């Protein structure tokens, strides 16, 4: 009984909690047990906050027994990417440089979660400071894909995706700068949404690239992501880029979509996003999904976004430039790691800063800081950063023109399925190119969703839906429709086809 509770979707679990068939403490405990059972192999979590989660659950149970009116997801546990500050709970960004640091404040979205009375199970693994596409750049070890433990789960949010894919948590929070929610969703057969930039507060989410970062929901189905998005979203006066508008009804859009009626919906296929380098099986599943959309009444049209091939170029200039500045604060002076030089240089603030950053940051982080510093340095700004910001304008114009014609754009989320651990570690460019389809949405600030749409050679494939800014609800409507059609074909969620994980003794 207790183990099966982990199989509930978040929406189902919320209902069970409401009618009293499952208590919040039971809901938390079964997931903690599941973490105990399988996380040794997966390593989705960097920190499990069992006591805090159970304490929250006990309060929820007490209030529910007392007849207190509770928020919809009260008692539904959640895992939080370890890039997000949690007061009193270690927050490392998977970096040695922040090892042991405990924030004295909560991120605004953590406040939202606490207000929603959702127990926080723990902090999930990621590529250091969210830089990577495989979670192999965590300073604290790789996370493994539950579909094949020898494979990467995608990144940077591999931990959050694996946590939901392996039933360690019904819900998780991710962050997405160039695909860090959507890539892992595609590789693990889960659903992840990068909301419109500004939909979810960035306050307390450790910055990677400020103009691209956006936190969002991770779950096993579209409705659950919509429900969590409603909890996370909303105006935050602490974030200057937060959208000051009411939160639309995302869950309603998902429920509407699940009726599989897409009449009048125009779906665009961007030719530049389905071409070179895509794995044939990934393309095959993509076109099968298009057919399903058409079968539900959607009109599918091809269109061109000529500047999209340059999105990759702009991204790998803007992102590292912002990274180089955002990560300057990790200097060994105030908090986190301090390393003294051992090569005979005098111990000064300057030498300690350089030694701390040299040893405290991993290779990928250093690579991007150096690249970004170079791109911003005297004599190169215009050619690199300036031009990249102009390309950004072109990409926004392409999106605007496309959305004049269609309601949503679609593409495969990633060019391939999950690759082997270590396979791309030595080929930086190949790793970066894995984000080619997810990057444009970040540059333009528009929302995008990835959902599972099939299997290729035993591994899940991902389907990406992109909507205009502030039209996140369209993602949920179209996503829920496709999900219903696919599950009808599969006879249940795709994750049911994942191999059973070995339970630790």
């Amino acid at each position, binding site marked *: 009984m207790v183990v099966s509770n982990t199989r509930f979707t978040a929406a189902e679990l919320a209902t069970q909690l409401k009618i009293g068939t499952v208590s919040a403490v039971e809901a938390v405990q079964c997931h903690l047990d599941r973490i105990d059972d399988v996380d040794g192999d997966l390593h989705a979590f960097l920190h499990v906050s069992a006591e805090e989660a159970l304490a929250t659950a006990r309060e929820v149970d007490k209030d529910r027994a007392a007849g207190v009116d509770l928020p919809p997801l009260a008692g539904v546990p959640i895992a939080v990417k370890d890039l997000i500050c949690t007061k009193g709970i270690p927050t490392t960004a998977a970096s040695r440089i922040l090892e042991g640091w405990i924030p004295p404040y909560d991120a605004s979205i953590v406040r939202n979660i606490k207000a929603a009375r959702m127990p926080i199970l723990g902090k999930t693994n990621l590529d250091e400071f969210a830089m990577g596409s495989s979670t192999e750049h965590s300073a604290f070890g790789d996370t493994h894909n539950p579909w094949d433990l020898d494979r990467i789960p995608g990144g940077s949010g591999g931990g959050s995706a694996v946590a939901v894919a392996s039933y360690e948590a019904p819900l998780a929070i991710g962050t997405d700068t160039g695909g860090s929610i959507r890539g892992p969703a595609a590789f693990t057969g889960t659903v992840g949404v990068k909301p419109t930039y500004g939909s979810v507060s960035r306050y307390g989410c450790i910055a990677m690239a*400020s103009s691209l970062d956006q936190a969002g929901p991770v779950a096993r189905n579209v409705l659950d992501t919509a429900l969590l998005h409603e909890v996370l979203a909303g105006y935050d006066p602490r974030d200057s880029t937060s959208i000051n508008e009411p939160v639309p009804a995302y869950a309603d859009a998902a429920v509407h979509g699940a009726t599989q009626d897409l009449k009048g919906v125009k779906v665009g296929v961007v030719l530049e996003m389905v071409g070179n380098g895509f794995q044939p099986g990934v393309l095959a599943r993509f076109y099968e999904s298009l057919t399903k959309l058409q079968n539900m009444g959607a009109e599918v049209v091809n269109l061109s976004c000529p500047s999209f091939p340059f999105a990759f170029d702009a991204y790998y200039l803007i992102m590292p430039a912002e990274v180089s500045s955002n990560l300057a604060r990790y200097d060994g002076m105030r908090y986190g790691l301090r390393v003294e030089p051992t090569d005979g240089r005098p111990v000064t603030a300057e030498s300690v800063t350089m030694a701390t950053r040299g040893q405290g940051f991993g290779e990928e982080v250093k690579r991007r800081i150096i690249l970004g510093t170079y791109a*911003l340095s005297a004599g190169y700004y215009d050619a690199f950063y300036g031009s990249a910001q102009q390309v950004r304008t072109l990409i926004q114009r392409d999106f605007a023109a496309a959305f004049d014609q269609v309601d949503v754009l679609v593409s495969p989320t990633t060019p391939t399925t999950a690759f082997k651990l270590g396979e791309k570690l030595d080929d930086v460019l190949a790793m970066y190119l894995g984000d080619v389809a997810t990057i444009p949405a970040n540059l333009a600030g528009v929302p995008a969703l990835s959902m599972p749409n099939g299997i290729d050679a035993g591994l899940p494939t991902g389907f990406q839906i992109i909507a205009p800014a502030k039209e996140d609800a369209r993602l949920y409507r179209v996503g829920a429709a496709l999900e219903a059609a696919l599950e009808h074909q599969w006879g249940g969620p795709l994750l049911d086809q994942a191999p059973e994980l070995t339970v630790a003794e």
Partner: protein
Amino acid sequence: METALVPYEDAVKRYDPVIGIEVHVELSTKSKMFCGAENTAGGEPNTHVTEVCLGLPGTLPVLNRTALEYAIRLGLALNCTIAPSCRFARKNYFYPDIPKNYQTSQSDEPIASDGYVDVILDDGETFRVPIERAHMEEDAGKNTHIGGDDGRIHGALYSLVDYNRAGVPLVEIVTRPIEGAGDRAPEVARKYVETLRDIARAIDVSEARMERGQVRADVNLSLRPTPESPLGTRTETKNVNSFRAIESAVRYEVSRHAAVLDSGQPVFQETRHFHEEDGSTSPGRAKSDADDYRYFPEPDLVPVAPDPAWVEEIRAGLPEMPAQRRARLHKAWGYTDAEMRDVVNAGALDLIDATTASGVTAAAARKWWMGELSRIAKQGDVALDQLNVTPQQIGELQGLIDAGTINDKIGRQVLDGVLAGEGDPVAVVDKRGLKVVSDDGALLEAVTAALAAEPDVVDKVKAGNMGPVGAIIGAVMKATKGQADAKRVRELILEQING
């Protein structure tokens, strides 16, 4: 290796100095620029900080509306154009007192640009200083160096950092090259910064106390052979933190540049440090490629586009600027140029203005503040406005004299009482019983007694010799402890004698 200096007077005969001044003004908002931490001078270290101004991971800035308003107000007071839209930028460099290792500032998009400040020099002449820009930025924390010699940096063992000041809003005001000052360059520099201080106070955006670091100046100087020559290489003397020091730093650098140029060497572009003890400067670090600040638009803050109506509202609310006010008052009060200059230099302008507002003539007000009160202030080594007397009290005091209730001599006693904290002049007069005695009955008694004591006086006066009257008046004054109305006493004496 420093060359011998060229005497200043000699240097300015042969070279044309060009100065440039960067002034940082701390804005007196309640909270900091980008977070709600209290903006206050002093306090225990690190007790006015939030996660934002400590630069903790994940934190984000949000601009303080009042800081923006003050920056606009200051820009308008400097006759600048307010940018219809501008952005913040990050200035990236590593230093332990800036918690994010970048300073949020403005680079090529300042909130205010292209203005000027009219500076009144000591001789009353007006000199116009062109302003290139005034931009917003955040202040840094403060380092204390521990160990080694005198806590000076060389030999320090470690440093302690307090972030109370980190994130305090600043406006940096940058002049264009100030040309045409000639041998008065040091005075122009000092007067310019004094004028900025006066403006900042007048428009109520800063307490602008230089001794507290609320106004900080960096002084650039270059020399050229003639005013027609292209600009020479400049040096920047950092943190010249008193008005006297500004003047000294310019003088010193003029002498030093002249010596370098005379020897046929080029001036080395560098940052220099000012030494308060002897008014000299010494080289700091040279400009290097480490000064690559990698500015880029701050992505965590959105552009600022002040509503033109708001800007006009701020403009309409600006008070009269100090220079205009000074000119207006000068005319209204009818002081000579020298008198006016002394009043300004004594810091008595506001005091006299407030005193005349309570109905006293400008001449009388000046007499009090520049006379008796200046003397008392000097004795106590305090500023005039620190004396324990208000302009309103001086007005009341002069009013008592004008009404004949007391005379000048008693007035000074009353002032002593006010300064001693005995209350307003009227109260002091009451308490000390200092009213002028003009009651004829009491005076007549004293006059009769005095005349009786000097019987020959009556005859002398009757014979037309008025000399001895003074002696009788003196005797009466003595008998009445100085409270007699001298004019009335004289009348009574003459009445008595002439019957």
